[in-house]
C-alpha cells in the first residue's frame, strides 16, 4: 500500500480503514477495561460469595461465568452479578437477606458444579465452608435482648425466601412465609441455623429473661440468621470472608 501515491483513492480508503480499525480496537479494549475498573477500585462493598469461594482476587480470576452454581442451588440463593453491580459481570454472589444458603442440598452442590475450581473442591461438608462470619450488628434492636417473643411470619407475607425445615420436609425447602412462628422468646437465628453450635443464646440478665445471640467458631457465614431475623433492618449480618479470630473489620 505504501507504494501508492498519497492522493490515490485506494491509499485514502486504506488509510481511513486503518484509522477506523484503530478506533475499533481502542473502543472494545476501553469497554473491557471499563468493566474491570470498578472491580479493582472496589467501588462496591464486598459481596457474599457462594460456599467454597477461594480468595477474592483468585475467585474473580478463575470464575468462567457459566452459572452452573446457580443451576444446582435448590433454593436459588446464588445470583449472577449484572453490569450495574460493578463486580465482574456474570460472577455469582449471594444476597443473604433475600435468600441465604441454607445447605438444603447437603452435599454443597455448587462446589461440585464449579468447572474451574473457583469454589474449592476440597470442601465436602457444609461444616468446612467459610463464607464469612455472622455478627450481631445492633444488639439493642434484637428481640431476644429485649426479652421479647415473636409471633407470625418471620419476614412478612411478601417475602419470597425459602428455607428447609427438616421437621416438615427433609427434601423440599418451603417459603419462609408458609411457616409462621409463635415464640415466647425470639430465637429464630439460633433455631434455624443449619450448622451445629454456630450460634447460641446467652442470658444477659440474672433472671434469664433477656438473652443475646452469640456467634461461635463453628459459624460458616451462610447467612440463614441474616435472612430469618424478623427485625428491619436485620440485627444480625454476615461479614463477608471474615475468619474467626480476625478483628472487626
Amino acid at each position, binding site marked *: 500500500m505504501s507504494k501508492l501515491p498519497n492522493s490515490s483513492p485506494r491509499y485514502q480508503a486504506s488509510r481511513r480503514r486503518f484509522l477506523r480499525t484503530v478506533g475499533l480496537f481502542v473502543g472494545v479494549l476501553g469497554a473491557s477495561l471499563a468493566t474491570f475498573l470498578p472491580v479493582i477500585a472496589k467501588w462496591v462493598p464486598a459481596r457474599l460469595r457462594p460456599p467454597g469461594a477461594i480468595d477474592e482476587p483468585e475467585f474473580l*480470576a478463575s470464575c468462567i461465568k457459566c452459572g452452573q452454581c446457580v443451576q444446582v442451588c435448590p433454593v436459588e440463593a446464588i445470583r449472577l452479578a449484572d*453490569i450495574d453491580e460493578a463486580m465482574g459481570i456474570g460472577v455469582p454472589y449471594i444476597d443473604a437477606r433475600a435468600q441465604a444458603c441454607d445447605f438444603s442440598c447437603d452435599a454443597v452442590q455448587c462446589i461440585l458444579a464449579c468447572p474451574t475450581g473457583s469454589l474449592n473442591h476440597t470442601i465436602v461438608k457444609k461444616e468446612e465452608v467459610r463464607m464469612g462470619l455472622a455478627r450481631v450488628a445492633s444488639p439493642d434492636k434484637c428481640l431476644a435482648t429485649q426479652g421479647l417473643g415473636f409471633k407470625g411470619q418471620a419476614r412478612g407475607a411478601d417475602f419470597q425466601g425459602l428455607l428447609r425445615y427438616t421437621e416438615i420436609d427433609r427434601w423440599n425447602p418451603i417459603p419462609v412465609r408458609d411457616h409462621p412462628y409463635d415464640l415466647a422468646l425470639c430465637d429464630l437465628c439460633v433455631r434455624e441455623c443449619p450448622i451445629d453450635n454456630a450460634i447460641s443464646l446467652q442470658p444477659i440478665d440474672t433472671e434469664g429473661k433477656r438473652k443475646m445471640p452469640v456467634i461461635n467458631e463453628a459459624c460458616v457465614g451462610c447467612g440463614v440468621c441474616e435472612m430469618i431475623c424478623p427485625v428491619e433492618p436485620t440485627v444480625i449480618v454476615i461479614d463477608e470472608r471474615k475468619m474467626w479470630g480476625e478483628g472487626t473489620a
Partner: protein
Amino acid sequence: MKGNLDALLVMFGKEPKKYKRLTEQAQAIHLVKKEQIRRLTPEEIAEFKQELKEIKQGVHSNKWRNRRWMTIIIVNLFFTLSFWIDIQLFEGSMIASRVFGFHMADIYSALQVVLAYKIVFINLIIGTVTVVIIWVLLGGRAFCSWICPYHLLADLAEKIHLKLVAKKWIKDHPFHRGVRGIFWIVFALLAFILGYALFNSLNPVGIVSRALIYGPSLALLWVFLLLLVEIFYSRRAWCRYVCPMGLTYGMVGALSPLQISYHLSGCHHEAACNAVCEVPHVLECVKKGRADQVKIDIGTDCTLCGACIDVCPTQSLRFEIKGLSLIN
C-alpha cells in the same frame, strides 16, 4: 482438512493469494469458459443477468439458513428449558456447561481463565478437550453459525444492515480483518497480566447465553450497542473483526474434515455467494479466472453456515466430508 497454511494466514487477516500457477485442468476449464463467454448471445447474457438479479432479490433456497436457525434456537432452548424445568441434562451456558454430565468449556474463555488464574483445573481441561474434539469433527467455526446465540441476533442485524445499504441510506465501513488476531493476543496477554479474564466479562456470547437461561440483564445493553454498530456502521463487525472465540474455533476447524468445497466447472462466476458470505475472503476463488484447481476447499475461517450453498444456482458449492469420497 479445511486448513492449509494459506487458509490460516487469510483467517488472521492476510489478503487471499492470487495463484499464478494453476493446474492444467483448471486452466483448461478457465479457457473453455472464456470461449463460451465470447460466444454468448445477447439473450443468454440477459438470462444470466436476470438470474443474478433474482438471486439478489431473494429468489433462492433458504434450506441451510432455516436448518441453522432451528439448530441455534433448539440448542439454546435445551439449556433454558433444562434449567426452568430442572431436568439437569444441559447445565450451564455456552461458556461452560455439563451436557448429559459431560464437561464442556468454551476454548477461548477457558484459556482466559487459565491465564488469569494460572492454575489449571482438571475439569476445565476435560471440558476444553471435549469441545476441541467436537468441533474438530463438526468443522470449527460451525459453532459460530450453528450454536452461538449472538450469531442469530447478528444474522438479523445483518439483514437490516443490508436493506439499509441497498436503499443507499448507509454504507458499510469495513475494518482490517487482522485486528481480530490482535484482539486474540491482547486479551490473552491482559488476562495474564491483570489476573482477570477481561474478555469473559464483555463477551456477548456469554451475556446473551446467560440472559437466555438466567433471565435478562443490564449487560444486554452492551450487546444491543454492538448490534446497533452492526446495523448502522459496519457489517457483522463483532463476528468478522473482533470475536476471539470465533477465531479460536477457526483454528480448531483447520483440522476438521467437514468443509464446504467449491467446484469450478459448473460455476457461472456471478459471485452471488460472495455477497451473502459472512467471511467473503474465503470465497475469493469463485471469481472469474481465480480458481487454481478444479475443486477447492473453502478455508478455515468459513463458518459452514451454508448461505453460499443456498444462493448458488449451479450447485458449485457443497458440504463435504473430506476423505468420504475416497471411500465411495
